[in-house]
C-alpha cells in the first residue's frame, strides 16, 4: 500500500469541506434541500434545481460495488508500486457514484453487487482518501 504517494486531490471551494471531513474520517455529501437528493462531485448548485440550495450531510458510507477495473498501465509515478491496481465504482446508498479503491480485499474477491463500506486508511500528506472494503468487516 502506498497511499502516501498517491496523486494529491485538486481542492477547490466546493470540495474543500469534503476533503476536510475525509481528514476526520467522515464521508459527507451535498444534499439538495428542495429534492432531498445527494450529488457528487461537490458543486456550487444542486443539479436537480440549478439553485444554491443544498446542505452538507453525513453519508452512511455504505454502498454497492457497481463495477470495477484493474489497471495494468501506469499513469502516475506515485502508484508504480501498486501495479496492477483495481479501481471500483461504488454506488452509495445516497445515490451518487464514487470511483475509489479496495481496502482489505483484492480485485479477485470483488463481486458486482456486493456491499461495501468506507474506510480511511491514509493518503498523501494532509489528506485521507476514502477507500472501500467489505461491509461486514466494519461494525
Amino acid at each position, binding site marked *: 500500500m502506498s497511499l502516501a504517494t498517491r496523486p494529491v486531490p485538486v481542492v477547490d471551494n466546493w470540495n474543500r469541506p469534503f476533503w476536510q471531513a475525509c481528514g476526520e474520517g467522515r464521508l459527507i455529501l451535498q444534499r439538495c434541500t428542495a429534492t432531498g*437528493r445527494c450529488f457528487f462531485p461537490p458543486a456550487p448548485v444542486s443539479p436537480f434545481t440549478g439553485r444554491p440550495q443544498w446542505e452538507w450531510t453525513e453519508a452512511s458510507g455504505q454502498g454497492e460495488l*457497481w463495477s470495477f477495473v484493474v489497471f495494468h498501465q501506469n*499513469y*502516475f509515478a506515485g*502508484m508504480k508500486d501498486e501495479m496492477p491496481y483495481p*479501481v471500483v465504482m461504488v454506488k452509495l446508498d445516497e445515490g451518487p457514484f464514487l470511483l475509489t479503491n479496495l481496502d482489505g480485499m483484492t480485485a479477485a474477491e470483488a463481486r458486482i453487487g456486493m456491499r461495501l463500506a468506507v474506510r480511511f486508511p491514509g493518503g498523501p500528506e494532509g489528506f485521507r482518501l476514502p477507500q472501500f472494503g467489505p461491509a461486514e468487516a466494519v461494525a
Partner: protein
Amino acid sequence: MPADLAPGRDQTGLQAPGIQAPWAMRDTVAFAGIGTTRYGNFPETDSYGLGCEALNAALDDAGLKPGDIDGLIVNRMPSYERFAEIMGINPQYCLLTEAPGRFSGVSLALAAQAIATGAAKTIALVYGNNGRSVRMMYGGGDSQWSPWGMTSPGAIHAMMWQRHMHQYGTTHADLGWVAEAFRHHACLNPDAVMHGRPITRQDHAAARPICEPLKLLDYCLINDGAVAWILTSAERARDMKRPPVLLSGYARQDAFHYGSAPADDFWQPTLGACQSVYDRAGIGREDIQGLGIYDNFSPTVLFSLEGLGFCKPGEGGDFVRDGALQLGTGRWPTNTSGGHLSDSYMQGWGIIAECVRQLRDDCGDRQIPNAQAMQYICATNIAQSLILRRDA
C-alpha cells in the same frame, strides 16, 4: 429503460427530437470533397502540416482552390487562426471545435447549419492530429478521480464493459468479433496502419491487458494523420467535380448528468433518442447498407448498436457474433476502412470520410456492393447519429 437505472438520478425521460417530423435540412447539404493523409508516425511535420496535406487533397478532390473556401472549422490543431494564416484562407465563418472525438459529428452539424443559414457557402473542415509523434498520453494528470488512480478514456469504457457483462451476460469474447472484423477490413485497405497484419479472435483474447477487462486489441490506435471534408449546399455540389454525398439526417442528444463517472446506462436513453435520425433522413434502417461506428474502444460498437435499436439492450454480443459487421460475411459491414481499432485514430473524421467514399464507389477491395446510404453512430455523452446517402 433497464430496471436498474440509477434511482438517484434525474431520469426525466429524453424526448426524441423531431421524431416523425421531416428535418428542415434533409439532403440540403453535401460533401463535395474528401481528403485524408497517410497514417503513421511523422515527426518531420506536425498537425498543421498534416492538416494542410489533407485539405489540399480535399480541395483537389472537389476541384476547388483555397480562395473558394469561405468557412473554416478546425479541429485538434492548436489554432484556427494560424491554420487559416498558413493556408491563406480569410473566411467569413471560422472556429476551432473541442478536441474530443464527439466533435467530429458536432463540427459537421455546425457546418451544415452555417451553410443552411447562409453564414457560409463552402466550408472546409480540417482535422489534424500528431498524437503519435508527440507521444500523446491519454490519461494521467490531475483530475477529479486521479487520487484513486482512475484515469484515461479506456478505463471509463472498461468500467462500463465490466458492468455490461454482469448485467447482460456478454463476454470479452464478443468483442473479439468486432476487433477481428475491423482488422479484416484494414487488411483490405492499403492505407490502414494495420494493413497486412491480420488478427484472429484468439489473438484478441490473448492480448495483454491494459485496463481489465479490456485488452490491447480493444483499444484504438494512436497515430498521426489528418482528414478534411469540404461541405457546401447540395445544389452547388452538383456542379462540382465529384458526385455529391448528401447529409440526409442528423440527430443528437447530450447527457451530462453522470457525475464525472462512467455512464451507468451505456448511453441507451440518449442513443435511443438518436433513432430520430431515420425519420429526419426519411431513410429506414433496412435502407442502409453499411455503418460507421465510433470505435475508440470495442465496447462502444455494441453500445451503439444497442442504443440505435439494431438489437435490444444487452444483445449486442449476440448481434456481432459470426461476423455480422464484416464485409462479405454480415448484413452490416461496419468501419470498412478498419476504423479506429485498425485503420487510423482520426476521432470520427476518418470514419465519416469512409462513409462518403463508400457512397462514391471509391473503396476498391473494401467496397460495399450497391451502397446507397450509410449511417454513422457515436456513443458518448454527446450521442449522435447521422445518415448519408448518394444523390439520386
